[in-house]
């Protein structure tokens, strides 16, 4: 789409786009190029000599069991975050959509977790499940279940999943609710007149019509689980115990800043960049289709 009416100025438009473009080049393109460049260099521990090593950093990474482990943890983590997050918020949205009286009050109570920083969400959940003073950990112990995320890797992973899902639920809920409210009431009424009960109506009409929203949210949630959950991990487990919650984004940070392995961290950055580009392309192709839907 283009405007028919435009203004004739030679320099003004350049001045207007300049700030945005300058920041984009300085803080997006240049560092991304640097990441690609560093990923093919090997720097010695004293930072003096750098050598061009082709794809050695990548080869090293792919031979590294720790990297595979981190990739597996990330896959399990994002699967759980997206799966749990979507099903819980779909359930809440469907139920909230049924409610006529008090619906706005419920909505207000369900949207505010979006405003809580993921790092703070991690701290809150860590407090609930704290082995010494956590009220939930205490309750579980009464029922004979020992919950100690400081020692048990599986439990630590479960906990960062809870915190990450909690942070993302309002977003999913709002989109599902908007999707539900855009389904024509006449369709549902027609099915009801034909004798379809609420369960049948949900699976044969509402669920299929909601699938574009669901697919969009799936991509958004996977992107969130991959890149938006650094704060949850750092505020809760710091990747531990024994690297059991070290997702890929956390590993880039840890190797690059704590471990000073610049080449390895840069190679990881490049791989993550490829993943996020892929996911974004999938997301945009879908949005294009939604327009014609």
């Amino acid at each position: 789409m283009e405007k028919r009416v435009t203004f004739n100025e030679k320099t003004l438009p350049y001045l207007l786009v300049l700030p945005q473009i300058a920041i984009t080049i300085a803080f997006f393109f240049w560092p991304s190029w640097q990441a690609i460049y560093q990923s093919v260099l090997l720097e010695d521990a004293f930072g003096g000599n750098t050598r061009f090593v082709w794809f050695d950093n990548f080869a090293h990474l792919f031979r590294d069991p720790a990297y595979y482990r981190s990739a597996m943890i990330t896959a399990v983590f994002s699967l759980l975050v997206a799966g749990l997050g979507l099903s819980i918020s779909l359930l809440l949205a469907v139920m909230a959509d049924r409610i006529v009286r008090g619906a706005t009050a419920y909505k207000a109570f369900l949207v505010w977790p979006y405003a809580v920083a993921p790092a703070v969400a991690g701290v809150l959940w860590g407090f609930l499940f704290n082995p010494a003073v956590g009220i939930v950990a205490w309750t579980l112990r009464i029922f004979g279940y020992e919950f100690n995320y400081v020692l048990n890797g599986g439990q630590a992973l479960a906990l960062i999943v809870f915190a990450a899902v909690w942070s993302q639920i309002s977003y999913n809920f709002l989109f599902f609710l908007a999707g539900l409210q855009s389904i024509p009431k006449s369709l549902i009424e027609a099915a009801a007149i034909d004798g379809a009960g609420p369960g049948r109506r949900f699976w044969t009409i509402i669920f299929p019509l909601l699938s574009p929203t669901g697919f969009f949210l799936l991509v958004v949630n996977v992107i969130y689980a991959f890149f938006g959950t650094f704060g949850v991990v750092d505020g809760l487990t710091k990747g531990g115990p024994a690297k059991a919650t070290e997702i890929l984004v956390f590993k880039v940070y840890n190797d690059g800043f704590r471990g000073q392995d610049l080449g390895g961290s840069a190679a990881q950055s490049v791989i993550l960049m490829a993943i996020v580009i892929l996911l974004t392309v999938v997301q945009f192709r879908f949005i294009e289709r939604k327009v014609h839907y």
Partner: protein
Amino acid sequence: MVENRPWLTIFSHLVVLIGVAIIAFPVWMTFVASTHDAQTMLRSPVPVLPGPHLLKNYSEILTQGYARTSGIPLTIALFNSMVMALGICIGKIVISIIAAFAIVYFRFPFRMAAFWAIFVTLMLPVEVRIVPTYGVVAGLGMVDTYSGLIIPLIASATATFLFRQFFLSVPDELAEASRVDGAGPVRFFFDILLPMSRTTIAALFVIQFIYGWNQYLWPLLVTNKESFYTAVMLVARQATAVDATPSWNLIMATAMLAMLPPVLVVVFMQRQFVRGLVETEK
């Protein structure tokens, strides 16, 4: 609803109520913890109802801070967070609205190149280029400055798109009429376009304020001096400090105050918030 099924309605209320309760529970426990003294919060089970030390805890954390991890009062960190959030959110809106104005209302060489350059930034979140971006900021001497906290985060593809989308929907007659009346592009922008963009700006403001306030990784990278720490950073540092017995009452008071401003923005500007969220689609 299409038919009257009282049991199903009750069941719906029940499910949503349980959902609300579970979602609110962590914050309730945080609030309760912030109203007791340190000793009470070390004995399990911890209380589930508020205690009498609310004012004492909050005034201690605001004026003296949490001595075990850092000496700075929370007031300073809250101020830093506010500067960062407002800087990011106003900065994003300003540079995006003028960039969108240029792209929509002018024809110039490299117009599409500029458009795509902005678009591609969607694919480069800071998390994937941590080390080199830090390198740029350090090279420019922006570590431990407010500009280092703000400027690298204010480029915004989503805001630029949203404004572009909106400008394209503005009738051509308006630009034509102002040209006939002898108004230049600057006059047209300030007198007509800007007032018309009010609702879009408000929606973006809410979303970007929350985005800016809740930044964690970026301030972690570009601040070394405690006097530049943000409130969210302080919460995480206090809670994950391993070497001392934690004062949960103070940590949780910090957490409450660190989440209060963005939560208030969402609660009081809910309409703009929902609009912004759905329209920016992240």
